[in-house]
């Protein structure tokens, strides 16, 4: 169950030269700065870029090999463009039907009703595209792409053209897609926050080349990649709801390295959640602290250390089998004698529950 792609596309000002293999399940984010070739890669997967030389296999279906290139309308994919691009001469319902009608009944697995319900666009069906807000338009565009029952959903920065309020309006829908539909998604983005919320896998693209790819939790904490060096370096931890503390209105989240205590979230026990811990919120102590207001303290082992700037160090820790990041001053690192293999305690001053 993988997607195997290899493209070489030469443009006047840049060359996209990628070979990658990604799992054909979950959300794979293609992340990188503007102009690194993210959109071109996505368009090549959709068959929208003329590409003489390439290879693309999705599951067991060959979409491109050498001179053979399956035309885009024969590829069972859904594509969400950066701008909603609804057909202006059709109302919302007919925009949705445009794709559905062209999919043979036997291949329909996502009904139009389901797509309408998932994106909450029932009340908009009779509207024309120009009567919708930017956020509504993008929701319709996502529903339209889903309603063709794609075997692969391609999303090109679907939130980039929207303001913060609209982004917040759509994000829950994207998260529910992730949770409720079993369609692999390739999601192009340059927003770390979107990636943290949605992605299971991450492909890091830089000047037309794949710099690294892998599971999101692993990729974010790899000290050899730029992601772990930024101001907002963070670790993502998959946890499950273990219980609630009714007395103090808190929720307990369990992962292999211990338990998080967070403010109450109304989720059933056993519900999976994604927790974000920012490197700057993690401090290190050699002994377990008592008499501290910090609730989230985990035993951990230092995995690697690298300098960040002249005064600080980024420390990669393993809490259970989960990597965490902590940013400490170089002085602290010297005083505590931090080095790989050392056992200590990580204290997280604040953690954010993402879903």
């Amino acid at each position, binding site marked *: 169950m993988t997607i195997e792609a290899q493209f070489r596309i030469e443009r006047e000002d840049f060359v996209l030269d990628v070979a990658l293999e990604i799992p054909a399940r979950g959300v794979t984010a293609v992340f990188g700065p503007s102009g690194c070739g993210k959109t071109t890669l996505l368009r090549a997967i959709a068959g929208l870029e003329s590409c003489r030389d390439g290879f693309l296999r999705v599951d067991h279906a060959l979409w491109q090999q050498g001179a053979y290139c399956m035309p885009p309308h*024969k590829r069972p994919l*859904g594509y969400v463009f950066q701008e909603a691009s609804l057909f202006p001469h059709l109302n919302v319902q007919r925009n949705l039907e445009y794709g559905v009608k062209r999919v043979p009944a036997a291949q329909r697995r996502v009904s139009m009703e389901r797509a309408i319900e998932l994106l909450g666009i029932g009340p908009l069906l009779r509207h024309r595209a120009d009567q919708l807000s930017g956020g509504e*338009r993008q929701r319709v565009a996502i529903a339209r792409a889903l309603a063709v029952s794609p075997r692969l959903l391609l999303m090109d920065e679907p939130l980039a053209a929207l303001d913060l309020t609209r982004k917040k309006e759509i994000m829950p829908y994207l998260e529910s897609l992730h949770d409720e539909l079993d369609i692999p998604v390739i999601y192009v983005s340059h927003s770390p926050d979107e990636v943290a919320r949605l992605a299971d896998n991450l492909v890091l693209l830089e000047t037309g080349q794949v710099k690294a790819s892998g599971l999101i939790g692993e990729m974010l904490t790899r000290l050899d990649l730029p992601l772990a060096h930024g101001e907002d370096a963070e670790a993502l931890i998959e946890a499950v709801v273990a219980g609630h503390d009714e007395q103090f209105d808190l929720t307990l989240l369990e992962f292999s390295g211990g338990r998080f205590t967070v403010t109450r979230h109304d989720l059933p026990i056993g519900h999976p959640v994604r927790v974000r811990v920012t490197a700057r919120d993690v401090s290190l102590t050699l002994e377990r602290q008592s008499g501290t207001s910090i609730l989230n303290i985990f035993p951990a082992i230092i995995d690697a250390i690298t300098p960040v700037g002249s005064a600080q160090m980024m420390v990669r820790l393993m809490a259970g089998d989960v990597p965490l990041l902590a940013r400490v001053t170089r002085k602290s690192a010297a005083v505590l004698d931090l080095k790989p293999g050392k056992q200590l305690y990580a204290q997280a001053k604040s953690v954010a529950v993402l879903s």
Partner: protein
Amino acid sequence: MNESDLAALVITLKLATVTTLILLLLGTPLAWWLARSRWRFKFLLEAVVALPLVLPPTVLGFYLLVTLGPRGPVGGFIEWLGGQPPVFTFTGLVIGSVLYSMPFVVQPLQGAFAAIGQRPLEVAATLRASPLDRFFTIVVPLARPGFLTATVLGFAHTVGEFGVVLMIGGNIPGQTQVLSIAIYDHVEALEYAHAHWLSGGLLAAAFLMLLTVYALNRRFPVGSYDN
């Protein structure tokens, strides 16, 4: 209106209708190609299509006469095959009109196609529409104002032509005489009343056609594609 005026009216309408239909059939793929192609020498073809806009109609008519006549390369070839050269026939009028009114159909279509851009077609492709399907379900509806303008301009311009049809048609009453030439003949014969009737009728008809185009394009605007 006398009998030969009526015949001229029928011929004019028939000529304009046939010419417009042929131009829509030929002009649509040509305009599509011109709007989409990135061929380096595309401008050559664009210049050729636009030529009738600036060329004196008599010049076009003259060359057509020479080419299509029995001594000309095309006319001679047709005669060699056993056919009749199309000069001084209705077919000749149609050939001349198609060439002469070409830019009036191709240019509005080309503009309309270009304005649609690439994106709606790419979206349609990802929604499983084949290229032909995309053309009829996306391009044609979005380019509707262009088609309307092209149809009316092509028709009206064919009704109004004089020099080309005079040259290649030869002003044979009942066969190749069209209204604009009939008006000229009336004026030559100092029959101003006749000339008034025909001229007034053409003026009213032309104005009405343009009015229809502008009103329809205003009433059913196709939304701009941007968000």
